[in-house]
């Protein structure tokens, strides 16, 4: 079966469209509600879901995502629960899902086992914030042999040009370009050199799509990033809507009202 992430980008590229990737924290405020959240995001036109698997010490995350992880853990989110959630979403949706987390929860589950179990549950990719490609091949237990999950890699503004190309060459699914130095969270202004950086990432000949995130929260920003990259990632701004309306009966409507304009602005 073709990986859903790859299929999504093939489809988008064939129609000349950019991807919209939305991040939410699994289990915030509860695992049941996350099913509704994902459904609302799909209805808003989101192409790919990044599902955060909460970790107690999210050191690359700003306060919005930290608090979301805290709420999810307090509500009882576990690795088993999140994998069940993915299975649950798969009963009604084929939207590509990337599991976004830190290494330790994956390590505790068993790295190889996690990759197999997540793929079996219906996930399509994994992004581990604190596992840089430098550790590939250096840790006997960190093997993903035969795993069907796409390994999404990060590139940062501080990544030197040569390293960008090395990471791009190892990337699968898509590359997540962190558009600015800092933790996750809403920013007033965007970095100005995004198009230049995306071109540099692709200079090595990599054909993996480049999606850009970190700090995007308005339709204008979404539009600007879509002009420069293959896709737009929005996280904290959506998490904030879940924070405000997580227990409200009209959570889905609130999400659609916020996310659809962001998606539409990226669909240029």
């Amino acid at each position, binding site marked *: 079966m073709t990986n859903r992430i790859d299929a999504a980008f093939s489809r988008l590229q064939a129609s000349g469209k950019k991807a919209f990737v939305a991040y939410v924290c699994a289990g915030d405020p509860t695992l049941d509600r996350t099913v509704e959240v994902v459904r609302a995001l799909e209805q808003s036109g989101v192409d790919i879901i990044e599902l955060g698997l909460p*970790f*107690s*010490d*999210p*050191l*690359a995350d*700003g306060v919005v995502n*930290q608090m979301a992880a805290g709420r999810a*853990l307090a509500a009882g989110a*576990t*690795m088993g629960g999140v994998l069940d959630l993915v299975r649950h979403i798969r009963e009604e949706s084929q939207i590509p899902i990337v599991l976004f987390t*830190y*290494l*330790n*929860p*994956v*390590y*505790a*589950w068993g790295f190889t086992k996690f990759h197999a179990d997540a793929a079996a549950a219906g996930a399509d990719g994994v992004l581990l*914030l*604190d*596992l*840089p490609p*430098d*550790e590939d091949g*250096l*840790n*006997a237990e960190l093997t993903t042999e035969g795993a069907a999950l796409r390994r999404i*890699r*990060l*590139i*940062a*503004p*501080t*990544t*030197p040009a040569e*390293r960008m190309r090395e*990471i791009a060459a190892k990337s699968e699914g898509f590359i997540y370009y*962190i558009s600015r*130095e*800092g*933790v996750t969270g809403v920013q007033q202004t965007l970095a100005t050199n995004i198009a230049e950086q995306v071109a540099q990432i692709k200079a090595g000949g990599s054909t993996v799509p480049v999606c850009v995130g970190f700090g995007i929260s308005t339709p204008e920003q979404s539009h600007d990033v879509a002009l420069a990259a293959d896709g737009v990632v929005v996280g904290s701004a959506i998490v904030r809507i879940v924070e405000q309306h997580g227990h409200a009966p009209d959570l889905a409507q609130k999400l659609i009202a916020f996310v659809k304009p962001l998606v539409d602005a990226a669909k240029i």
Partner: protein
Amino acid sequence: MISPTSLPDSHGHFGAFGGMFVPETLMYALRELAAEYERAKVDPAFHAELNRLLKEYVGRPTPLYHAERWSEILGGARIYLKREDLLHTGAHKINNALGQILLAMRLGKKRIIAETGAGQHGVATATVAARFGCDCVIYMGAEDMRRQALNVARMRFLGAEVRAVTAGQATLKEAVNEAMRDWVTNVRSTHYILGSALGSHPFPMIVRDFHRIIGVEAREQIIAREGRLPDHLVACVGGGSNAIGLFHTFLEDASVKMTGVEAGGEGISEGKHAARFQGGKLGVLQGTKTMLLADRDGQIQLTHSVSAGLDYAAVGPEHAYYMSEGRIQYTYATDAEALDAFQTLARIEGIIPALETAHGLAEVKKLAPTLSKDQIIIANLSGRGDKDVAEAARHIFKEDLKF
């Protein structure tokens, strides 16, 4: 066992431990730091300045003191104390803070950040930042700010901004998270002086190397005094910087036994201690693969210790390696045992140790009587207890001292 001098390898691994498990944004800064450190290591001018400042500003070498009365009372081995408590700022931490700020100067970084638990590393960092004219921000858990209020005031006098961290249980781990977030955001202008033999490569190596002088001096001093090597070395282990500093030079001397002492808190049950080698497991936290306290799902567990400096869920990766090789033994002392040793050293030897240090002394108290009078223990007296006066009074006199 791999030769201690060839560890870590070029990837920052100590056997199966260590490494660089950080977000991509930091990789460049870590590689830049590692490269600059390699250049500094072979630069005589760097060593000349470091050694001059260690001597004139920090107060090295520190004495190796024969604790005669305590040795006699315990009735066993001769106990020597390596007096790191006599250093400027009151603990071994300044060895590393000074070395790292010299690296920051070479990197052209004039903004310094650090985390601190007990406040000793924060004070040491604030001190060298003042000395070199750098802006300084120290992240400290709100709970630690309460129990180490004296050190908070010292950091402020030294011109540092102390930022309270209220997340989680508001202790050292949360302070490290917040310092890492600052570094990710300000990485181009800022150097992060990590305070223990922890975190991503190259920190465990750099921190160890700057503290290695503790063991180098102790070795010379004990040979001059006793004409031979010690039988036992003892030190407390939070991240493990003072312990690896004392132990490293002796690792290839098979006759020298070594014991690292973790914080047993209120006893070894979940959330009540910080003894990673008692019920901890392999995992990845804050940049390194090591032994840590986590639940079945990999969520980091709460820790407890009377000493803020040992109250942390992960141990330095080099310690995890020597534990796995059986070269260093690890045990723990409870809060009560540490407080008892704190009192003992004060009353018998007239030295008030830090509560962290007192964990190592609690082990000395158990170990010495089992040895004969011709055997020698060197314990690292890693810090003095001035900072702990209020916390110790709360436990020992049941009094709340106000300053």
